[in-house]
C-alpha cells in the first residue's frame, strides 16, 4: 500500500476506519489485490517508480456518503481522487494523478434519475455509462438518442468533464457543451447545484444552463475543485432519417476548398456531424480495403512520390486524393435537401468533385438491426469497436496493450492541416520516431480540427520512456505553432499546462488561487490538469 507522502500511518488508519463506517466494509478496498484494480491499465509508466498508484479506494452509494468522505479526508488531510466509471483509458483510467491518493470510486452511484422524452434531457449520476443509458432508452422505447464517444463503457459525466466528444449532431457531440446543470460536492463537503439547480424547486434545471450570476460549471471540468455527483444532459430527439454521402476530390489543392466548404456547412448548421478528412490516395480509407499494388509502389517512390504523379494516378484511376463523409439527421426530404445543397456547394468550388450516395436509414431500428449495425457511433449506439484498433488480427499477431493519444487542436483550414503535417513529418524524421496516427484531421468540435497522434502502451520501460519523451517534445513543438492539446493523460498534464502560459502563466495562477480558496487543505485530485495544491507546488516546479 502506497500512502501519500506527508500522511501519517495513524491518520491514514483512522481515515480508513471512518471511511468504512460511511460506506460499509464491502466498499472500502485496502488489500493489495483490490487496490491493484485501480492501476491505470494503459499507464505509460508501467512498472516504473513513477507509475501512479492508489493507496486505497472507497466507493460511496450516494451523495451524502460523498460528503461524509470529503469531511473525513479534510480532517485527516487524505488526498482523494474521484473517478466515475474508471474507464478513461488512455487518459489515466482509474488511477490517481498523485500517487498515494485514495480513489473515490463513484461507479456505484449509477442511477438514471430522470429522463424526459418530451424535453429530450436526462439527469444522471457519475456511474451511469453510455451503455446503461442507451439500454434504458431502448428498454423503454424512448424516442431520444444519446451521443457516445468511441468506447461505450465510459461515464456520461466523466467524459463530459474531460471534454470528450461523440459522433452525432452538434451540440450533442460536444459532451460538456451538451450538459445542463450540475450537482457538486465541494472539497469541504458542502453541496452546490449550478444553473437553475441553485433555485429550490426550479422547473428548468436541465433546460436552462445559466441560472443567475456567474456561470460556474466550467470550473468543475478538467479540474480538481469539486466532485460532480449529478449532471443533466440534452439528448437528441430521434430523427426519422439518417443519410450520408461522400465527397471525393482528385487534386492536391482541392484540400483547401474542401475544408472551407466543410467549415461553412458546419457553421451554417447544414452538416453538423463528426467527420474526418481522409486521403484514399495517400493513406487509404480509415476502414477500407488495402491499396492497389501500383499505388503502393508509387507511394514508396524514393524521396516521395511527386505531387504531379499522385494527381495523375488519382485522376487516371479514380482514387480520390481527398474524401470526406457528410452525415445528415432529420426527415427524408430535409436530409435529401441538405445533401443536395452540400453537393452544389462543393461542385462550385471543386468542379471535378464526385459524390457517392451512402445509406439512408429510417428509425426506429429494431433491437436486431441496432445490434448488427457496424459503425454504430454516428447513430448514437454505444460499442467497444474502437478497441479493434491495434487488436490482434491475422496480419497483426501481437496485439497492442493500449494507446495514449496526443491531439492538438488546429484551425479548420487546409493551410493549417498542411502546415501541421509538414511540421510533424519533419520533426519525426529528425527525431527518428514514427508515432501511430490518423494522419488527417478529425472534426469533433464545430470550429476546429483535432490532429490525432497515437502511441502504443508497452510493458517495456525503455520504449515507454522514448514514447513519453516524444510526446513531450510534440506538446512543445505544437505550442510553438499555436496548437494546444485539449485533454491528456496524467503523465503529461503538467507539460500541457505549461504551454498555456499567456502573461506569465496567468491562467495557472488563477487556477491556483481558486484551488487555495476552494480546497485549502489540498485534498482533492492533486495535480489534475496541472493544478497542484499549495503544499505540493514546489515539488512540481
Amino acid at each position, binding site marked *: 500500500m502506497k500512502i501519500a507522502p506527508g500522511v501519517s500511518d495513524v491518520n491514514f488508519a483512522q481515515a480508513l476506519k471512518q471511511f468504512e463506517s460511511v460506506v460499509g466494509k464491502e*466498499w472500502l*478496498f485496502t488489500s493489495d489485490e*483490490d487496490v*491493484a*484494480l*485501480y*492501476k491505470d*491499465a*494503459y499507464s505509460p509508466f508501467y512498472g516504473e517508480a513513477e507509475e501512479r498508484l492508489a493507496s486505497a*479506494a472507497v*466507493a460511496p452509494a450516494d451523495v451524502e456518503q460523498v460528503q461524509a468522505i470529503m469531511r473525513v479526508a479534510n480532517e485527516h488531510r487524505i488526498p482523494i481522487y474521484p473517478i466515475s*466509471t*474508471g*474507464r478513461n*483509458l488512455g487518459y489515466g*483510467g*482509474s488511477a490517481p494523478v498523485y500517487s498515494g491518493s485514495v480513489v473515490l*470510486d463513484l*461507479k*456505484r452511484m449509477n442511477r438514471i434519475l430522470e429522463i424526459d422524452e418530451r424535453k429530450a434531457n436526462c439527469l444522471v449520476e457519475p*456511474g451511469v455509462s453510455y*451503455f446503461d443509458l442507451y439500454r434504458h432508452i431502448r428498454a423503454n422505447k424512448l424516442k431520444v438518442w444519446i451521443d457516445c464517444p468511441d468506447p*461505450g*463503457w465510459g461515464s456520461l459525466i466523466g467524459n463530459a468533464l474531460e471534454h470528450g466528444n461523440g459522433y452525432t449532431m452538434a451540440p450533442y457531440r460536444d459532451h460538456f457543451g451538451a450538459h445542463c446543470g450540475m450537482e457538486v460536492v465541494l472539497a469541504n463537503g458542502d453541496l452546490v447545484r449550478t444553473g437553475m439547480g441553485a433555485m429550490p424547486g426550479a422547473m428548468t434545471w436541465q433546460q436552462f444552463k445559466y441560472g443567475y450570476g456567474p456561470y460556474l460549471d466550467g470550473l468543475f471540468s478538467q479540474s480538481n475543485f469539486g466532485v460532480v455527483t449529478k449532471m443533466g444532459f440534452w439528448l437528441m430527439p430521434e430523427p426519422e432519417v439518417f443519410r450520408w454521402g461522400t465527397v471525393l476530390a482528385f487534386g492536391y489543392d482541392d484540400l483547401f476548398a474542401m475544408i472551407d466548404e466543410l467549415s461553412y456547412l458546419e457553421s451554417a448548421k447544414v452538416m453538423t456531424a463528426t467527420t474526418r478528412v481522409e486521403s484514399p490516395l495517400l493513406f487509404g480509407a480509415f476502414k477500407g480495403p488495402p491499396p492497389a499494388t501500383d499505388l503502393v509502389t508509387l507511394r514508396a517512390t524514393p524521396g516521395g512520390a511527386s505531387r504531379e504523379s499522385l494527381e495523375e494516378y488519382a485522376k487516371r484511376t479514380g482514387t480520390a486524393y481527398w474524401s470526406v463523409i457528410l452525415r445528415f439527421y432529420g426527415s427524408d426530404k430535409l436530409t435529401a435537401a441538405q445533401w443536395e445543397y452540400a453537393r452544389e456547394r462543393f461542385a462550385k468550388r471543386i468542379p471535378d468533385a464526385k459524390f457517392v450516395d451512402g445509406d439512408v436509414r429510417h428509425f426506429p431500428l429494431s433491437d436486431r438491426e441496432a*445490434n*448488427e449495425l*457496424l*459503425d*454504430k457511433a454516428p447513430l448514437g449506439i*454505444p*460499442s*467497444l*469497436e474502437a*478497441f*479493434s484498433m*491495434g*487488436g*490482434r*488480427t*491475422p496480419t*497483426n*499477431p501481437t*496485439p*497492442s*496493450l*493500449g494507446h495514449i493519444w496526443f491531439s492538438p487542436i488546429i484551425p479548420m483550414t487546409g493551410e493549417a492541416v498542411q502546415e501541421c503535417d509538414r511540421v510533424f513529418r519533419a520533426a519525426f524524421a529528425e527525431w527518428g520516431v514514427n508515432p501511430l496516427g490518423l494522419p488527417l484531421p478529425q472534426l469533433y468540435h464545430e470550429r476546429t480540427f483535432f490532429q490525432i497522434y497515437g502511441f502504443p502502451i508497452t510493458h517495456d520501460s525503455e520504449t515507454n520512456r522514448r514514447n513519453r519523451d516524444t510526446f513531450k517534445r510534440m506538446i512543445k513543438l505544437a505550442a510553438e505553432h499555436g496548437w494546444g492539446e485539449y485533454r491528456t493523460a496524467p503523465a503529461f498534464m503538467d507539460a500541457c499546462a505549461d504551454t498555456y502560459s499567456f502573461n506569465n502563466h496567468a491562467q495557472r495562477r488563477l487556477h491556483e488561487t481558486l484551488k487555495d480558496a476552494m480546497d485549502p487543505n489540498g485534498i482533492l485530485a492533486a495535480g489534475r490538469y496541472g493544478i497542484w495544491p499549495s503544499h505540493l507546488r514546489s515539488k512540481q516546479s
Partner: protein
Amino acid sequence: MNRYTWVGGLAALLVTAQALADEAPGRRVFSQWCEACHGVGEDRPGTLGLRAKYSGKLPALLEERKDLTPNEVKYYVRHGVAMMAPFRKTEITDADLDLLARYLAHSK
C-alpha cells in the same frame, strides 16, 4: 439401482439444475459487461482478437468455449489481458463474477 448409483444420479441432477439456475444470471452479467467485446459481430474486438489468436482451433466466442474453467474466467476479469483492462469490484462484484465464471464454464 443401488444406493450409490441413486446418490450419484441425484448429484448429477443437482449439478445440472444448478447449472441451469446459474445460466440466466450469469448470462445477465455477460450481457452487461462482456458482450460488447465478446459477442457476435464484426465490431466486437474480443471476438475478432480470439478468432485471430486461435485460427479455428478454439471458438472465437467465449460462450461457445467448452474448455474454460471458472478460475480462468475470474483471472482474466480481474487481471485483464492485452487491451482488455481489469474490471473493478464496483463494476463486477465478486458475487457477479462467480455467476459469470460458472456461466462461461458451463456454456456449450
